[in-house]
């Protein structure tokens, strides 16, 4: 057995210390050593985007990053996205529009979308597609995800924006 190594980093805004076997990925450290199971895995080979999270504000695949590389950095997982009990606007719209169907890919999508809206508060549909192109979802066909991002973006800009009726009820 490998002897453990200890690191210190900021996790969801809190100073965190954790010890783990040095070969472990950040994904494994979060799930197995810190019990933060909100970060999911779909392949553990960097192919699906399911384990995406934010390191220093940038989206990365936590299955391809060693836990040791998190030393001294700011890591944000899905557990840190809401402000206490108050959901992030993206979390609200994903929940309201059924953009989370099975919900397994949702943490990755939510965090990548958060990164997008920080960089681009009023993204076009094409920009959203490009930004989310590394995340696979098998349930939604992505459309409710786009609509949730657009609705959340509008709310975050302080605009009153209603989704078109056809997004919810279909076309007449």
């Amino acid at each position, binding site marked *: 057995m490998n002897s453990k190594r200890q690191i210190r980093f900021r996790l969801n805004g809190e100073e965190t210390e954790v010890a783990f076997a040095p070969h472990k990925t950040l994904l494994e450290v979060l*799930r197995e050593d810190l*019990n*933060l*199971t*909100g*970060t*999911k*895995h*779909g*392949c*553990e*080979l960097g*192919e*699906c985007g*399911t384990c995406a999270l934010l390191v220093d504000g940038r989206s990365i695949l936590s299955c391809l990053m060693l836990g040791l590389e998190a030393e001294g950095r700011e890591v944000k*997982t*899905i*557990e840190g*996205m*809401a402000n206490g009990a108050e*959901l992030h606007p993206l*979390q*609200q719209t*994903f*929940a*309201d*529009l*059924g953009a*989370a*169907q*099975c*919900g*397994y*890919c*949702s*943490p990755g999508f*939510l965090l990548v979308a958060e990164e997008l809206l920080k960089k681009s508060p009023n993204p076009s549909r094409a920009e*959203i*597609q*490009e930004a*989310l*192109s*590394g*995340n*696979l*979802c*098998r*349930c*939604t*066909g*992505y*459309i*409710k995800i*786009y609509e949730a991002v657009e609705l959340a973006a509008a709310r975050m800009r302080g605009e009153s924006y209603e989704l078109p009726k*056809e*997004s*919810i*009820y*279909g*076309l007449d």
Partner: protein
Amino acid sequence: MANKLNVIGKPFRKVDARAKCVGQTKFADDIVLPRMLFCKILRSHLPHALIKKVDVSKALAMPGVFAVITGKDLPISYGILPVSQDEHALCINKVRFVGDPVAAVAAIDEDTAFDAMNVIEVEYEPLNTISSIEEAVLIDEPRIHEYGDGGNVHKKVSLEFGNVEDGFAEADLVREDVFFYEGNTHLPMEQHAAVAHYDADQKLTLWSATQTPHYVHRALAKVLEMPASHIRVIATPNGGGFGGKSDPFNHEVAVCKLAMITGRPVKVTLTREEVFYCHRGRHPVLMKVKTGVKNDGAITAMHFQSFLDGGAYGSYGVASTFYTGALQTVTYEVPRYKFQGLRAFTNKPPCGPKRGHGTPQPRYALEVHLDKIAEQLRIDPVDIRRKHLVAPNSVTANYLRVGSMGLDKCIDKVVEGSDWKNRFSGWDPDHRKLPFGKGIGIACSSYICGAGLPIYWNNMPQSGVQLRLDRQGGVCVMCGSIDIGQGSDSILAYIVAEILGIDPFDIRVVTADTDLTPVDLGSYSSRVTLMTGNASIQAAERARELLVMAVAEKLGVPIENLSLAERRVFDVENPELGVSFAEAVVLAESKFGTIGTVGSYTPPRSPGKYKGSGVGPSPAYSYSAAVAEVDVNPDTGIVTVERVWIAHDIGRSINPVLVMGQVEGSVYMGLGEILMEEMTYRTNRNVVHKFPSLLEYKSPTTMEMCDVKTYLIEDPDPNGPYGAKEVGQGPLLPVPPAVANAVYDAVGVRIDEVPITPEKVMRALREKSRGRDGRYGPDSVPPVSWPDPLRVLTPAEGGDGTEMPHVAVHS
């Protein structure tokens, strides 16, 4: 009941949506128990071989290894269907595909389990392989299984409704086509995982990502030789199912056995590669369809043959085989119909049910075939469909009872929305309305809303719901159904909330726990909304009756005057007069004792009584129509689907936003199947999967997904809860053929093989440029000696649904 609906038809948030968006939903791999061990499964690297010897001594001697089991530890076979109990949790005498499980290890951590797995020594004696439908039909030895319909044929079926030869004789045109639909897989983002725990009182609990906890429960009792009452199966929320988590799986049995041996909890989480070996996905199907039509496109007879590549085990395969022949008759009038189906065993991961179970393949064949007939008859492809639809409230030639039927409205919507008349080429390449390379195509479909019969024969309900009301006003709804993302937990809450006049979020939903919840057969066959919906209506109406009786007595008003809404029970004539919902429960509990009610649902009996009539009947059928618009690059063969207009006859939306999500997700999955997804194997004798990975198994990303224009047709079905029909599977079905027909409209080549990859388009274009038939696809089907068909007189011929006497009946 109040006339105005407060919950049904409204876009409520799903009851579990918040948890899913904050990372709190506990999927199977998120479960951690004290002293938990980790399991790894050694799988065969050979596609077909006898197991001569398994030596686990080195693995067992490793520090941190607690147990190693092999086939002899689990000698009892199992399988989802009673007729094909052909699997062992760990192979005993032979392995049948690359990925077949041979031994399982429980160790202190995953790394140790992995290392131990790799020092298990297995001595194999390789056998010749069977790698295709053709080989299975032609090569009898070695047999992959010792049962079935001879050699490597698992199952042959042959049914004839009316005399198809008479029908062909009446026809103005008889056309025959051959198609192939390649297999593909579910690819749920969550890999299968399970945790077993053997209690101090020797009771077993299994948490598993399964769509069918009830069937897993039954399989475990059989294989582990334990009373089912000592086993508890809890299905965890599925991180995507699509049919891929519907069988009892070897890894579920293995962790239970390891937990029993070690006395410690044991977890298994499959790697992505292993998920490809679990498979149970779309069967590759070779099809030949022959149809007779009158000059106006009316069908006089149809003869459909399907050849399924089943892979190495039975799984749902017998049902899949029947499904490739069952639903051809529920869209267009088919007065005489013959079906012959064959399922082959091959040395590949077993196929089973994937979204649309056994119907996307024949639907693709039928809809492209119909397009070719329309061209030959110079009829618009819309008209050939629209003018010959089955009648609502009718019985088909193969005895499927059609109730509501909204396909006419579906077709009208997509034709209008897509501006079909101004865009379709009209079979005239010289007077195109769209430029060469752009095209549109149409297809229609229908799907079951729940299988009419359960998987194992019984007279019990297919769905049960239990409701508990407590004196504080709490309502708990319990049901064996499992949410796989489609929203089945929410459906229970919406319906109970509607009837009891409370908010869906007031309700606690407990599902998929064999200790706590009444049996529901599971999340498959698009059955859940219809069946659990009807069961929950019954349970909630029974509870409502107790509440109004108690409140009527208290208030001194007639029962029929009382209404339940806005968390109150009140007099409709004097709304001020009433009590809160919680007070109503107190009154009812005071009068009747503890308040609990149950509801259950059993589908109506099918009019079909012939052998084989069990697959296809349903309480209702959903209908869909789609128009696809494509861009085909003639220089590269790349097909881009730009937009799909789809209309779905939902009966009634319990929650429209969830219905929209299912339609869009179905279009997406159909798009993946027609353009890129395929399970393919090396063609040499090794039968190795070419790319068991998410990167190389191509599936649509945001960059490939098309625009979708959705129409929901609401035509309530009398058998559906509030009129609701299914939406999880049906809308996938018209997408592949609509795209194939659009490709033809765009560049004039027929790709009669799914998926439509650029190479196939280029080959067909090259053939066409050389003056030959611009077509890519199979030309023939293997020679098969079919049994005499079981003959059934159609309803129109005065048949009563039973087979005709005096003919040899194939078993």
